């Protein structure tokens, strides 16, 4: 009986910590993303791979690994039982994609490019118990000479 109470207490602590910190980290991340996306908005991105250009370019890549929090894990477990959209996980994957694209833009900015062509995104699930998602973005940065 004591063991059960102990487990419930541990669960509640993890749940509330996950809820508080997870929310805080997610909102901070989204604010940073909004701000930086405006900063790098001048870099164009397309997925066209048949472009002919006389400018020079090189391949760039970026990746990010984002993990879930305990609150989302519990929500997803409950949701898994009934089926339907896992909204809590959708937000993780979206944040990871936006972050990867942003880092790709930063990388392009660092080498002085303002156009990225042939962008590809790949998503991998890392953790064995789920919950860790990696997004890898790569493309060819073009340095336009005017």
């Amino acid at each position, binding site marked *: 009986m004591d063991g059960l109470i102990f487990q419930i207490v541990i669960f509640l602590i993890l749940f509330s910590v996950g809820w508080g910190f997870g929310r805080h980290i997610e909102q901070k991340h989204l604010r940073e993303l909004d701000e930086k996306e405006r900063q790098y908005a001048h870099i164009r991105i397309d997925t066209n791979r048949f472009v002919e*250009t006389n400018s020079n370019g*090189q391949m760039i890549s970026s990746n990010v690994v*984002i993990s879930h*929090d*305990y609150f989302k894990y519990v929500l997803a477990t409950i949701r898994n039982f009934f089926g339907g959209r896992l909204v809590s996980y959708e937000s993780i994957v979206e944040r990871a994609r936006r972050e990867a694209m942003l880092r790709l833009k930063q990388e392009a900015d660092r080498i002085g490019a303002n156009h990225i062509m*042939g962008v590809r995104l790949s998503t991998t699930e890392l953790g*064995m118990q789920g919950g860790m998602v990696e997004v890898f973005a*790569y*493309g060819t940065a073009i340095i336009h000479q005017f």
Partner: protein
Amino acid sequence: MGFFIASIANISYLQEDNFNDLEKTMLLSSLESVPGHTISRQLDVVYGSTVRSKHVGRDLMAGLKNIVGGELTGYTELLEESRQEATQRMIDKARGLGANAIVGIRFSTSNIAQGASELFVYGTAVVVQPVTPKLPDPFSS
């Protein structure tokens, strides 16, 4: 314990390979052509792969981070350097064929065992020549 051994292994691994000066001579592109160059000869498909596992120290941190959420910097770095190694292997193969560029590069990742993932990269090795910049024709205007 695992953390210390793994960090020592990491340091010696970093000293062994020096990517940057080799990568400069090989042009890489995820497009069907290298920007600013024309393909003069198609050679062969080249690929490189590496299987890496995470170490105990990073795993422990990731376990804690799983509760609060957010970015796992350790894994991000690990995957990045693993991909660099795979790319380096691909470049070595292309150099063996006598290529000076690799076009149409694609990456893929798969979980093959508990805690280990394979990073695979492939592309077409080609010989390219720089496009000579077109000078404005003095007689046309």
